[in-house]
């Protein structure tokens, strides 16, 4: 502040009359409902970065959904990237829609207001395509709410030419079978090019006068061999309930559908114009992916398996994206995201370069830090140059050396303790340690070793710093076996066993009162994980369970205050025996090598024989190296997908920025 002079501003909040309303907008019907619901701002739209295009000037129209509340959905990178990529096309329009909370859902049903987009408040049913991005299976019930509120038939089979084509994407789409009855298509893998290809097919089909209607359009999508159209595949079952085979029910669709891989991330520097939320959201920062894919080979990690190979974004592109993203949005925080950010070949220069560029500003930089080594602390030191220390998280994942060999997380107890002590001696007062419970072959003893580890961390930290003022938080997540991972065959542990282990661990941590006081303990109950397990490895028969749960009021299953375990157990008990299977059959049953898995016809590039071998290696506690630094271990992805590892270093450095002074004026305004 100069001279203590403080400017004043006047702002006007619109009344109904002053708001621009699109011709086919449901805003006039929606607006009177908003004063009656919680956080109405989340339904209003008009964020910085939002785009409203002329409906009639667009040929292909997409409604994009993240099936959770605005506060979780808006920051989603996938949706933001596709929204921007699609809206850059002159003849294409994309708008966003999020899950509405039950209070608004009730009012919308009472007043006949359909599922709407937040951009121009158009009815979702009016769009050509309805793309839904699933990062977790717990969004499935919200998908049904949105379809139903939109006035679209719940079952894909009942839809007509007047209904949008519902396309699922995101990591959960690598096994879309549980929602196969509700979606028209699923896309596996990176979305940037996939949405362009789909847009092209819809554009052409519409230009030709929609020959053959919906069926022909879906057929054209299926023929790309990278869009899965469940209706063109039949599933046959064996008498014991296992799948016999999944085969095309017509001659002109492929036997297997392959994932998409976007190569050369420097050519796709999105988001360029990040959305700046109006309501509070879970992440308020400019996030840039510094690489995609991961070959660390943690056997529980679906993201690492299905996003191979590693493709780095170069230091210069990252620097440019950060500069432009911050300038556009005004965010004060930058997240350098990836599955293992410290592994970027230029991460050191990237962190020091960015720290240098933003020194003395209010920009803070963060790195999801999970790698357990001293290098991670060096990076965190660099990033905290501005004075703000970001939190440090280390993820040994497993409590015992043995279980870490099973999951292929190569870190020793000594490494961990040394690393955490380094953090304490460098001024961190608090670190977070992340573990999982319920891993294959796990025993009580494996989990109890977490307590020993935490005790030793505190003991060593106190000795090294001479201070009692250090803490660690032990955070435990439930393991859920996922498709396309070596653990896809594994049995889940029962929730009672998990909960018992978590109780034993708590007692063990607090057995030493002095050390226990310095250790925080966070965990999740076993029950939601079991349901996530049902949904992640389910087949088409699980769709009936989802539908029953939804009919019984299931919504927002990712939120503990909305999730009802009993509702899922009851629905499974009502529906599954009719198919000769039950909840346990899907969750706590180990699969054998020859069983046809529901997603076998969906190709993530990973060789099933390699996955099985890796599963056997897990059981014999044999570790697998990372192909970033060691020779190829033949997981199958690169040859199958015709891709390759793309890593640096480029040898370039980030140059100091010319400080941007003054105000960012709208284009056309006088400087």
């Amino acid at each position: 502040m100069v001279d203590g002079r403080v400017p004043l501003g006047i702002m006007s909040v619109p009344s109904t009359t002053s708001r621009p309303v699109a011709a086919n907008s449901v805003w006039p019907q929606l607006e009177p409902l908003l004063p009656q619901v919680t956080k109405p701002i989340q339904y209003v739209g008009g964020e910085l970065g939002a785009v409203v295009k002329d409906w009639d000037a667009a040929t292909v129209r997409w409604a994009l959904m993240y099936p959770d509340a605005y506060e979780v959905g808006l920051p989603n990178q996938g949706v933001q990237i596709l929204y921007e990529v699609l809206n850059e096309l002159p003849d294409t329009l994309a708008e966003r829609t999020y899950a509405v909370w039950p209070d608004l859902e009730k009012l919308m049903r009472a007043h006949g207001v359909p599922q709407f987009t937040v951009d121009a408040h158009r009815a979702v049913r009016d769009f050509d395509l309805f793309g839904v991005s699933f990062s977790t299976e717990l969004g499935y019930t919200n998908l049904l709410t949105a379809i139903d509120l939109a006035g679209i038939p719940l079952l894909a089979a009942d839809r007509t030419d007047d209904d949008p084509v519902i396309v699922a994407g995101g990591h959960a789409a690598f096994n879309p079978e549980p929602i196969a009855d509700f979606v028209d298509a699923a896309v596996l893998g990176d979305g940037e090019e996939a949405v362009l290809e789909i847009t092209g097919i819809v554009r052409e089909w519409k230009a030709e006068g929609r020959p053959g209607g919906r069926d022909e359009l879906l057929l054209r999508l299926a023929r790309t061999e990278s869009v899965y159209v469940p209706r063109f595949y039949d599933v046959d079952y064996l008498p014991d309930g296992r799948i016999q085979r999944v085969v095309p029910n017509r001659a002109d669709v492929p036997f297997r559908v392959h994932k998409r891989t976007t190569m050369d991330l420097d050519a796709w520097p999105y988001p360029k114009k990040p959305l700046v939320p109006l309501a509070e959201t879970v992440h308020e920062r400019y996030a840039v992916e510094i690489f995609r894919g991961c070959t660390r080979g943690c056997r529980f990690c679906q993201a690492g398996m299905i996003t191979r190979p590693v493709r780095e974004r170069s230091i210069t592109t990252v620097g440019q994206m950060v500069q432009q993203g911050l300038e556009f949005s005004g965010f004060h925080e930058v997240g350098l995201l990836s599955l293992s950010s410290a592994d970027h070949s230029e991460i050191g220069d990237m962190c020091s370069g960015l720290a240098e560029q933003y020194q003395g500003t209010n920009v803070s930089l963060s790195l999801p830090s999970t790698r357990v080594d001293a290098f991670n602390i060096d990076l965190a030191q660099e990033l905290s140059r501005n004075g703000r220390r970001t939190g440090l998280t280390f993820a040994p994942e497993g409590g015992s050396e043995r279980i870490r060999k099973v999951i292929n997380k190569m870190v020793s107890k000594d490494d961990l303790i040394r690393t955490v002590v380094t953090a304490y001696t460098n001024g961190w007062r608090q670190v977070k340690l992340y573990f999982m419970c319920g891993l294959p072959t796990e025993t009580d003893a494996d989990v109890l070793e977490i307590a020993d580890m935490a005790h030793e961390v505190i003991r060593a930290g106190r000795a090294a710093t001479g201070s009692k003022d250090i803490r660690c938080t032990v955070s435990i997540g439930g393991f859920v076996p996922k498709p396309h991972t070596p653990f896809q065959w594994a049995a889940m542990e029962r929730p009672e066993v998990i909960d018992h282990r978590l109780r034993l661990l708590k007692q063990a941590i607090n057995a030493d009162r002095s050390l226990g006081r310095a250790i925080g303990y966070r965990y999740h109950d076993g029950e939601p994980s079991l349901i996530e397990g049902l949904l992640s490895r389910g087949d088409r028969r699980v769709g009936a369970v989802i539908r029953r749960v939804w009919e019984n009021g299931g919504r927002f299953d990712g939120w503990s205050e909305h999730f009802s375990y009993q509702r899922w157990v009851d629905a499974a008990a009502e529906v599954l025996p009719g198919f000769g299977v039950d909840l346990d059959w899907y969750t706590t049953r180990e699969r054998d090598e020859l069983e046809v898995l529901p997603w076998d016809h969906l190709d993530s590039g990973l060789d099933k024989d390699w996955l099985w071998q890796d599963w056997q290696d897990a059981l014999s506690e044999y570790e697998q190296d990372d192909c970033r630094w060691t020779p190829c271990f033949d997981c199958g992805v690169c040859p199958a997908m015709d891709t390759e590892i793309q890593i640096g270093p480029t040898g370039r450095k980030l140059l100091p920025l010319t400080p941007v002074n003054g105000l960012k004026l709208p284009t056309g305004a006088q400087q």
Partner: protein
Amino acid sequence: MAFSQGFTPHPKISYASAAPTGVASEAEYLEIGLREVVDPEQLRSALDAALSPGLDVLDAVVASGSSLPDRIEASHWRIELPQVHPDVLAKAVALFTAAEEVLVERMTKQGRRTFDARAAVVKIDVIAAPATPSGEPAVPCAILELVVRQVTPSVRPDDVLSGFRVVAGLEPPVAPKVIRLAQGTLTAQGAIVDPLDAERDGATIGGR
């Protein structure tokens, strides 16, 4: 933009008597601290460009003299009550005006509080509904304008409506539409003066 000192610096921005959620407004005021001197019109234009359509920054002036909250003495509101007959409203207003004190309840951040909604109301008028072309309003809609003094706890339009419920049992069948028309310093006649007038000195800065 200037930031506060400390471990987690916050942008220096403060709102003076912000309108409650769900209420439209034509007159909100805020104060922001900047790191350097800028042209107020350029500031206005840059802020306006970053905000949502319909959230319009109309004017910016350089602050001097008394603080912004000191200049916001009262607020001018307009309340539309669809499906309420103006006569019914007029009766409620008469009872409300005649009362010495009208105690209402509202949940505040400090919990449920009971306070007087009457004393802060400086001026209250029932406005004749605009006639439709046929000369007959299609649906009755009573319109109220009121000037309320800024007090603690603040008396909001919904508190005045609660007061009507207390004194006259008036229960609007549909949600009322509330618009803040102006806020600022209060004259003896109950009129509201733009709080930025002192800085403006007769010159229009924001192009209004």
